[in-house]
């Protein structure tokens, strides 16, 4: 961003790639190489061992019919993949994921922007409000799931309140009604994760120099004009990064659905996701080969979407942050 302060420009922007190397001294000495290896070795080993290896293993196991005991021997080629792509349950899960991806962006983005603008205003008690708004984001999925399941069950508190204020008609079976459940899920997701977006947006707003809005005010711009013409465009990169994280999170959504709807009800209520499908058809059914194949499909779908998003949306701000600044 050309408008941010000097140092910022120099370090090229957070998530972005390292800046072009300075004129480098010729080669680097053995001592330095040793330091590089000693400092970065442990992190690379851990990362390759526990993140990269499992992903590769999944690709391997996915070709087997395998119950998870001993080495896999029953090679079935692409059978698992054929089954997945033909399974109606998987199609449904994929469709739910697609809805969740889009609705998350559409619901959480504007709400979070509004909240961030609100919290960025100077007002009394601001610090308390800021802490409180993050509460849902900080408590665990299990707690959120347990609490909302209790609140929303047909004899739960939400319906209780609705009945007691005479809105009988609005009391619904929030969790089990297939036409409603996905919206219930979206409501809970928004409640839970909007705080994360707000944190990012607030952090992004700190980078926008005050002088800009002061100058705008001096030229007679109203508050909303300032936000619309200055804050929002300058927040663009942050919003786009958030969008990326949100899409990836939505594609891999598991915890809340699994906790609230359990493994069996999710598909009948219309909230199953690819990840809950993977766990219930894979591990819970004892079909580890199949579960791994589902993981591979999930991986490929996520990667394609991530790359497309990066090409189309992130390109102009991060210049290859996620592919390492070629």
């Amino acid at each position: 961003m050309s408008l941010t302060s000097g140092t910022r420009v120099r370090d090229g922007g957070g998530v972005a790639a390292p800046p072009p190397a300075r004129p480098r001294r010729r080669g680097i000495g053995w001592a330095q190489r040793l330091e590089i290896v000693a400092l970065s070795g442990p992190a690379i080993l851990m990362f390759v061992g526990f993140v990269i290896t499992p992903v590769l293993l999944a690709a391997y196991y996915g070709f087997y019919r395998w119950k998870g005991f001993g080495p896999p021997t029953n090679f079935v080629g692409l059978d698992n993949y054929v089954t997945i792509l033909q399974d109606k349950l998987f199609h449904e899960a994929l469709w739910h994921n697609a809805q969740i991806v889009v609705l998350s962006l559409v619901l959480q983005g504007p709400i979070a922007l509004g909240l961030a603008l609100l919290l960025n205003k100077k007002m009394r008690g601001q610090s308390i409000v800021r802490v409180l708004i993050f509460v849902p984001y900080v408590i665990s999925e299990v707690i959120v799931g347990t609490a909302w399941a209790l609140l929303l069950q047909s004899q739960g508190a939400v319906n209780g309140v609705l009945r007691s204020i005479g809105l009988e008609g609005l009391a619904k079976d929030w969790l089990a009604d297939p036409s409603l459940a996905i919206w219930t899920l979206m409501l809970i997701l928004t409640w839970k994760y909007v705080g994360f977006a707000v944190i990012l947006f607030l952090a992004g707003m700190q980078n926008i120099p005050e002088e800009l809005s002061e100058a705008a005010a001096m030229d007679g711009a109203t508050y909303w004009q300032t936000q619309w013409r200055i804050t929002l465009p300058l927040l663009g990169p942050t919003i786009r990064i958030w969008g990326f994280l949100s899409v990836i999170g939505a594609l891999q959504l598991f915890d809340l659905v699994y906790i609230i709807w359990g493994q069996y009800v999710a598909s009948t209520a219309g909230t199953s996701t690819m990840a809950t499908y993977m766990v219930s058809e894979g591990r819970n059914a004892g079909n580890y080969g199949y579960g791994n194949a589902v993981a591979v499909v999930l991986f490929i779908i996520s990667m394609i979407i991530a790359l497309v998003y990066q090409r189309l949306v992130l390109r102009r701000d991060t210049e290859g942050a996620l592919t390492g600044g070629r």
Partner: protein
Amino acid sequence: MSTATHAKRGNPVVYVAALALIGVMLGPVVYIIIGGFRTNSQITTDPAGLPDPWQFGNYADVLTGDTFWLQVTNSTITAVITTAGVVTLGVMASYVLARYHFRGRGAMYALFAAGLMFPPTVAITPLYVLIKNLGLVNTLPGIILPQIAFSLPTTIIILVPFLRAIPRELEEAAFIDRCSRLGFFWRMVLPLSVPGLITVGILAFVNSWNSYLLPLFILNDQETFTLPLGVQAFASQYSVDTAKVLAFTSLSMIPALVFFSLFERRIVGGLTGAVKG
């Protein structure tokens, strides 16, 4: 960014909006906490009411039982070691990425950045097999090690800009004083990057404290359960005793909440360098 010139300090609309917001965000949480002070019959007859009279038995039962404390201990050990591991490995690797110039640096950065795309969900099934082959199923290291690995991408992405922002003059001055690169790292970089380290530390701690999927796969033995698994087990074991479940649930969220509230400013501040374009 300030809007001081225009902000009317007492604008009531802003305060009403803020209050409504707090109500929505805190409602369910308050419901859990207050529900723990009620009896089951109170909850059944009026699901949304206040305790009448207030019951302290549920909380007392949970606090005097062994299960809760065992799980608190497991969660604490896991979160503390995970945090220490992530911060240590993360800052070392970030220092290399931020201040050394060598071939393959771009590739190394790309390797970790790619990790952002893949939360544990994708890798969980084979990861379970891997942990099983290592003999670490039903042990805390079985979740600590993968957690460290999966937290590294975020940590590194946040820390690299932080470390890079340390002025070059400082480095040159240190070298003139015959400080080695490692000496510079130890004596200057670490102290200067404490705010960033706190940010990534909190994120790692809270993530570990709340982690569900990984323990779900790796830990089957009640003795090794962390709190999220404990809450779920408790909720199904005492499914008829809603009040007690609520008490257990509210107690289990305290540490992460306290931790986060204390450092909220640091987190927003620490991310400031990382999220800008």
